[in-house]
């Protein structure tokens, strides 16, 4: 449980960080909260020769709102997400999900950017990002680009982020009137990743579901967007029958790996059950019942 030797760098600006990343190329890794990277290094599954620590770059922290978008800097920690008045008011799904991640120690250092970029199938933020139709502000030596969450996650631990690029911020739309959100996560214990989880974000008008996003955690190589399930419910009033149909569609896209949390059958059913619960809870919130 001791990593091999590495060089530690502490840039104070994004530009310095980009220079270091370019300079060391493949040998370098960004260090954010360290709660995914350092365990991998201690197990010697990852052996970067250079660590570029982003913790001392002021501009990578903070949450602000402009033009109907909330922008969350990548180095914002989970515990900052949980206590942000802005998010609690205008994007409550993020604090809700963040409070279900790991334990207080992990949440006080782990960052939203690290959670997204690491793209562990068990990480919670990727599904949240899909459910919220978020976009990512990415910086490289060639400048800045903005990429939608949809399509960003390519596979387990694999995203559209290029080597030497930094995820700078996450943009999410401010939630509108009549919207409701829920993140239902089944886990064995505190500090565990999801056995299965489901993120739901929807808008209800006059009892009719105008729009719904459903995304699943840890039942595939990446977070999964349950589009077929969404279309069952879009434009409909919620009924038990439709709910069951939607849940069935969500279960149909699951392709989980068996592990000590359970076998495939269990995980697929749990993705279904979490989806059922999340839809119900989001609906109740949207219609003032939650």
């Amino acid at each position: 449980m001791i990593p091999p030797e590495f060089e530690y760098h502490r840039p104070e600006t994004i530009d310095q960080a980009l220079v270091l990343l370019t300079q060391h190329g493949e040998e370098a890794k960004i260090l954010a909260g360290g709660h995914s990277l350092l365990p991998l290094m201690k197990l010697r599954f990852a052996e970067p020769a250079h660590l570029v620590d982003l913790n001392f770059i002021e501009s990578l922290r903070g949450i602000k709102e402009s033009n109907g978008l909330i922008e969350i800097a990548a180095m914002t920690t989970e515990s900052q997400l949980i206590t942000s008045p802005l998010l609690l008011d205008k994007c409550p799904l993020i604090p809700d999900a963040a409070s279900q991640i790991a334990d207080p120690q992990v949440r006080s250092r782990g960052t939203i950017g690290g959670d997204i970029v690491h793209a562990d199938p068990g990480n919670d933020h990727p599904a949240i990002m899909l459910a919220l139709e978020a976009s990512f502000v990415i910086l490289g030596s060639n400048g800045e680009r903005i990429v939608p969450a949809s399509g960003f996650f390519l596979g387990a631990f694999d995203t559209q982020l290029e080597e030497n690029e930094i995820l700078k911020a996450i943009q999410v739309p401010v939630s509108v009137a009549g919207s409701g959100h829920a993140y239902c996560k089944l886990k064995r214990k505190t500090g565990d990743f999801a056995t299965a989880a489901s993120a739901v974000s929807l808008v209800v008008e006059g009892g009719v579901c105008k729009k719904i996003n459903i995304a699943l955690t840890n039942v595939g190589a990446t977070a999964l967007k349950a589009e077929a399930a969404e279309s069952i419910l879009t434009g409909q009033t919620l009924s038990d029958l439709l709910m069951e149909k939607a849940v069935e569609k969500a279960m149909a896209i699951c392709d989980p790996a068996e592990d000590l949390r359970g076998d495939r059958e269990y995980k697929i059913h749990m993705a279904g059950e979490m989806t059922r619960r999340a839809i119900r809870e989001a609906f109740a919130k949207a219609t003032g019942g939650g």
Partner: protein
Amino acid sequence: MASTPEDKQRKENLAGIGCARKRKEDPRFIQGKGHYVDDIKLPDMVYGALVRSPYAHARIKGINKDAALALPGVLTVLTADDLKPLKLHWMPTLAGDVQAVLADEKVCFQQQEVAMVIATDRYIAADAVELVEVDYEELPALVDPHQAMVDDAPVIREDLVGKDEAGQGKRIHDNHIFSWEVGDKSKTDATFKKAAVTVKEEMLNQRVHPCPLETCGCVASFDKVNGHLTVHITSQAPHIVRTVVSMLSGIAESKVRIISPDIGGGFGNKVGIYPGYVVAIVASIVLGQPVKWIESRIENLSSTAFARDYHMVGELAADKNGLIQAMRVNVLADHGAFNSHAQPTKWPAGLFSICTGSYDIPVAYARVDGVYTNKAPGGVAYRCSFRVTEAVYVIERMIDVLAKKLAIDPAEIRRRNFIKADQFPYQSALGWSYDSGNYPAALDKVLEAVDYEGLRKEQAEKRARGELMGIGLSTFTEIVGAGPSKACDVLGVGMFESCEIRVHPTGSVIARIGTISQGQGHQTTYAQIIASELGIPSDQIQIEEGDTDTVPYGLGTYGSRSTPVGGAAAATAARKIRDKARKIAAHLLDVSEQDLEWDIDRFRVEGAPDQVKTMKDIAWAAYNNVPDGLEMGLESVNYYDPPNFTFPFGAYLCVVDIDKYTGETKVRRFYALDDCGTRINPMIIEGQIHGGLTEAFAVAMEQQLVFDESGSIHGNSLMDYFLPTFVETPVWETDYTVTPSPHHPLGAKGVAESPHVGGIPCFSNAVNDAFSHLDIKHINMPHSAFRVWKTIHAQGLDKRT
């Protein structure tokens, strides 16, 4: 006698037996000022790290150390070939087998110790481990003890081929270690044949690990000049370590000093002697420098002693009213690759024969067969006396199975079968003499406290609505305090316990006891015992343990033996001092000894209550004014050999609600009544019960070391292995009755393991009870959400209509 307010005050001043005194060790622990093995730093200290096998079963074709040795800072790399000339490549186990210290030609479990790198710092050692090249030829692995016993199974222990004995009786297969039988087989079989009702169930006590927060490790330091070896070590039995180290190394036992400093939990995991310790000692002798070796969490969970892995078949025979007439148990015990379970040497299945439990079962028979598999060696008592958890599990589950078959309420069937209060001392069918108990009273108190009938009514209503609610009972009897030396020894050393007490001239005391606390609060409790016996306030009594140079020989702390045996030694040693003090008091007061009576903290002359000498006065006189013919000083030693074990008991009740769509079990209520005889410190008892119940909860619900077919271990880190935090832990309600042990000087029985032993079947019975209206007889632990859901789903209970 203590009737006046002044008497009461004097008694309270002692903070002795019965006082809920705050733990003396806590100020240092909660300030981070504990001193553990890994805190020890000695001049010139170097670091060892182990190269371990990635395979469960493989031949070693070669080991190349060159690259590792070439790394600057690496001092040496030791393998079996290096230990061979010293005859230390194998070592004897506590169970009469031998165990490879470093793998000799083959590895028999994943993570087995293959080589140790010694380097000037810990980081270099870790790098060098990666550079040791081992050439393996993989062999088929056996992880299931049933498979290990089939005719043409691969042979795990080639070193034993042709030997029909491995230290514990006859072997009947190359992968077989021993058969152990107890009871009257033919009478049992005959009773089963005639019985009106019989039940039979297979049940597994899954392989788990005690997982103390502090992993194992040591700092071995050999002084080449004077030939002294000092080892700081995470050991629950430092004197046994000293004897074994002396026997293995040839160094005189008087030149070996073993020190167990603060220990961060043991739970049986720190009884054994591990290869890492032995190689670190050898390395220190070779290099003449202190060598530190500390395990990582993964190493601890994968290679040091596990617990359980008992594959049991339990059977009961009864009449139609549920009166049990006979019990039969057959066990296949998976001991892993070497038989290094930690039990008293003559007990290959520990005290498993306590399996008739709290019930008056006229005839019984049990047989245990130990087998080798390609898994880590061990088989320790995880917060229990030896194999008592397994025994209590099988009887407490089986009585529920019988109750279900006969449609008798689980509380009622227990009541019908209890050993009655007037049957003590009770002779069990499998040979134990239970010291004391009152089982029906304990059960009744619990049932009343929780409104048992109300709970059953609620359960019936919930069932009608399709909800799953379970009520579990456990009315267990433990056997602790090993043990009478005629029955129990470790490598030939009787399992007595010792205490030495010195009263200083000014009336304060140091006492040294052969046990070693790992969180039990010995500094607090022992001082209270001595305080009451000597009439000296417990705050003035220092307790020292764990240093073999200063403490008299003791067998250590495990199997709830500290209070039953160590506490008895402390009381007996204190009484010797009081006897001498009486002589001195008589001399000072110029009366005869018979004229004196003991009065809380002083002797007084009968009939002349103002004529007194306090213990403090007497202590001073002991160093300047003793009667003719009496030695000066005020000290004593006692080696206490208990006449019997003690038999704590309890009645537990657990209520669970199961979410039928996720399989999650919520423990709504857990009521634990314990009877541990005389209660020395009620607050420490309460703490021990909370801890034991929490570990029982962990075992019953989630803990398991899992192996795949290739013998790879899974779940060997805290990401998977379940240690409940405050979040998962249920709320505990505790209660007690007091039935003193008639043979213990204080009437005390030991308590810290009861909640674990009694708790596990209670949780398991509750989960099983949630399904008792269905055609399900027994569900094995762990009752994780996943496994419970499997049962629910197979029954179609999660269907939505």
